[in-house]
């Protein structure tokens, strides 16, 4: 089974973020980066499927040079080779733009399965995987908790709202977006890192790929959550005030 895992490099969780001077993105100086958490689970799922059924795991990453660190970690954990689409303009692309680059980079790969994380920790759009599947013309399923591979098809368990799950059987090739926390991640080992040195990383310059369609969605402004404190004095008799308070708690604040 040949599995491609699309991974993204995002700022380390708990980084202290600052908005850059343009107001369109965060200041990237002094930030450390790591693999997007749901992608780490997608990679883990791919590695476990490979351990069970054999085959190959290919890591796919679009991003600047610093992304090679995350690629190396993926190779160290057990991916067999990697494809790095080198580009510095991720923030200016929309999901269609990124998905079309990913699709173009793997058009000759003919994988049985493509896994991505459910969404990214930085933008949280949750679309890249779905759009990629559409571009490749293969079926997809999202928020996957469990994968069981069979002959030419897979059975997956999707997470729905409110504790409901959906079990789906689908043909291969297919694309799945993987939910965070569905298994136990493995730790990178020294042996893995040493082996990773000899593994193939195919670098593709974004310029060599067909130009991405003009972004249909643009980032207007990036800003840190603004804390607001608002005090309202409810006037009237205690009975009236209480009634107003209950109404506000019910319909404005929606806590009762």
């Amino acid at each position, binding site marked *: 089974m040949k599995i491609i895992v699309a991974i993204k490099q995002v700022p*380390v*969780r*708990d980084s*202290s973020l600052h908005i850059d001077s343009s107001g369109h993105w965060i200041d990237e100086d002094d930030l450390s980066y*790591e693999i997007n958490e749901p992608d780490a689970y997608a990679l883990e799922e791919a590695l476990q499927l490979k351990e069970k059924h054999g085959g190959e795991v290919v890591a796919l990453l679009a991003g600047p040079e610093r992304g090679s660190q995350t690629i190396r970690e993926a190779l160290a954990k057990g991916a067999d080779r990697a494809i790095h689409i080198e580009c510095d303009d991720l923030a200016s692309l929309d999901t269609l733009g990124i998905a079309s680059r990913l699709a173009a980079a793997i058009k000759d790969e003919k994988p049985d399965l493509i896994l991505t994380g459910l969404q990214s920790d930085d933008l949280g759009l949750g679309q890249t995987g779905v759009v990629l599947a559409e571009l490749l013309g293969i079926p997809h399923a999202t928020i996957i908790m469990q994968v069981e591979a069979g002959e030419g098809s897979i059975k997956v368990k999707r997470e729905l709202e409110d504790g409901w799950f959906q079990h789906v059987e689908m043909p291969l090739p297919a694309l799945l977006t993987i939910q965070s926390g569905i298994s*136990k*991640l*493995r*730790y*990178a*080992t*020294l*042996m*893995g*890192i*040493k082996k990773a*040195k000899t593994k193939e990383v195919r670098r593709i310059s974004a310029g060599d790929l067909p130009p991405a369609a003009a972004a249909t969605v643009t980032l207007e402004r990036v800003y840190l959550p603004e804390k607001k404190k608002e005090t309202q004095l409810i006037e009237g008799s205690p009975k009236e005030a209480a009634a107003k308070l209950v109404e506000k708690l019910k319909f404005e604040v929606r806590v009762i």
Partner: protein
Amino acid sequence: MNPATPAHVLVMTLHYAEPPSFSMVEMVLLAICIALSAVAFFRRFSRVLRNIFTARKDPGFHLAPIGKRVWDFFWELLCQAKVIRERPLPGLAHAFVFWGFLAFALVSLNHFAAGFRLGVLDADNWVGVFYFWFAAVFALLVAVSIAGLFVRRFFVRPIWLGRKVSYESGVIAFLIFALMVTYLAAFFVPSTSTMARGLWWAHALCILAFLPLIPHTKHLHLVLSPITIFLSRGEFSHIPPLNGDEDFGLVTGKDVTQLVALQAYSCVECGRCTEHCPAANTGKILNPKEIILGVRNYLNDLGPHSEEPLLGKYNSQEAAFQCTTCGACEFQCPVGIEHLPVIIGLRRGAVNTGAWEDDHGTKLFLALERNGNALGMSATERDKFIKKQELPIFDGSQEYCLWLGCMGAYDPQGREIIASFAKVMDYLGTSYGVLKKEKCTGDPVRRLGNDLVFQQLAEQNLEIMKQQKVTKIVTICPHCVRTIAKDWKDYGASPEVEHHSEFMARYQDKLPKTDGPEIVYHDPCYLGRYRGSYDQPREVLARSGKVIDPPRARERSFCCGAGGGLAFLGEETGERVSHVRAKELAATGASVVAAACPFCNTMFRDALAATSDAPPQLLDIAQITAQTIAAQPVATASATPSNGAQNA
């Protein structure tokens, strides 16, 4: 040696009697016996030598400094200091047997030489008389000692010697005893008598029977342990650097180094390591002696070129990961075995190749990879603490960098220790600052054998040190001290570092003195055995109260159970190490338990509460000192160093 008058005979019989001459037949017989014994010895011994010499070379081993080696050889081997100190009575008995062997070296050589008419010691001249009598004194001591050791092994039977009685040891003890008796008896017979000849032959045959028993029993230590002691790794718990891209620690026989093989064959199976091991004493499967013997059995069965994993049939992975790296085993070992490089080497092999699967361990590794601290907290929590505590930020102008460590930065109790120590430093007028960014020193991953994460943390921290121009570090955590001082060295030059107990001890005269309560002090492994700082914390505590020792103190201190990364692993099997120690500390009746390590502190907090209804108060030495400072009468307090408030 003339035939003599009766009076002369009496005098002669108090001389050592050796047959005056040997026939050709006797000489041929003797030559055959010697040849048989030597062949039997070398056939077995050459296999041992081959397993040692063809093993992998030790990376990073160097003979210098030779002075320490010579001293260790003199003190530990020739003086038998360690053997005696740790088990006085059997130790002294062993020392007499050892010194007896040394004294007998010349006698034994002469014995065989005489058999070929080449003897040099003559019982008639004064040199010979002196030496034979000199040896006789030792013969007596050896005979008594070996008989005592025989009684201990076969009748007293301390469990440390193993459940299975070693019958070879009985045979060896008998041979040694017989050697001494045959020697002493020769003082009471005329040299021309058949008896003298019989004794001579009996003595010779005992030696020749003894030789072939050496290489395949624990008595191999007679030959190897002097070399083992001389060729130590040079420092306590030295973790050797990995060598090249194929070295992941002790994975298979191919990774066993010459020193590991030498040490494995030197083991005398005395069980001192087991006796002092916190794991072995609390119902875990780890037994440090068995780890070493496991390596020996592996080498005997498969040799140092096998690709069979070392963990499996011969040693258990579970056992290797039960070690708290307290180092009691290595400290106790009388034949120079260094257990920690072996145990940590086995862990390195398992972790660096991914063979160790443990949920808690994986969680710790991922936390250190992602968050850079062992508690898996966000670095912003550290920032908040620094801000709340108003700790000055290190900017290169201060003398000391106060290293918080994971416990000091994130653990509530550890933070209290930092706050107290900051007060002490303010009181003493020391200038200090804390780093804006700091990662775990990597101690838990170093001891658990994760070289990848350790290297990352060491390099990141060394980079911070360089950027901030840190030259002197003081910290509340002995694990940080050890890791910064020794382990970072593999990746660059690290700053000078000292433990807060050592810092405060240097300024003890400036600290207030009160007659406080009885304080029982627990020696942390990483401050005591690892660093040799036993007196400094006691001196600091003596300013605040009466310091008492628990039954196991100083070099023999019993671990709290947290070391070696175990604080972050799951529930222990058997009894909890921390409970055993907490009970021991509480039983001293002291009203205060003083710790000098935030890990000990956190272990005892739970353990004291769990094992005692009215537990003694648990405090770090910095907290005790800060309390004493705060409790000073105002008049004295105003006499504090004038620049004391500058850092506040």
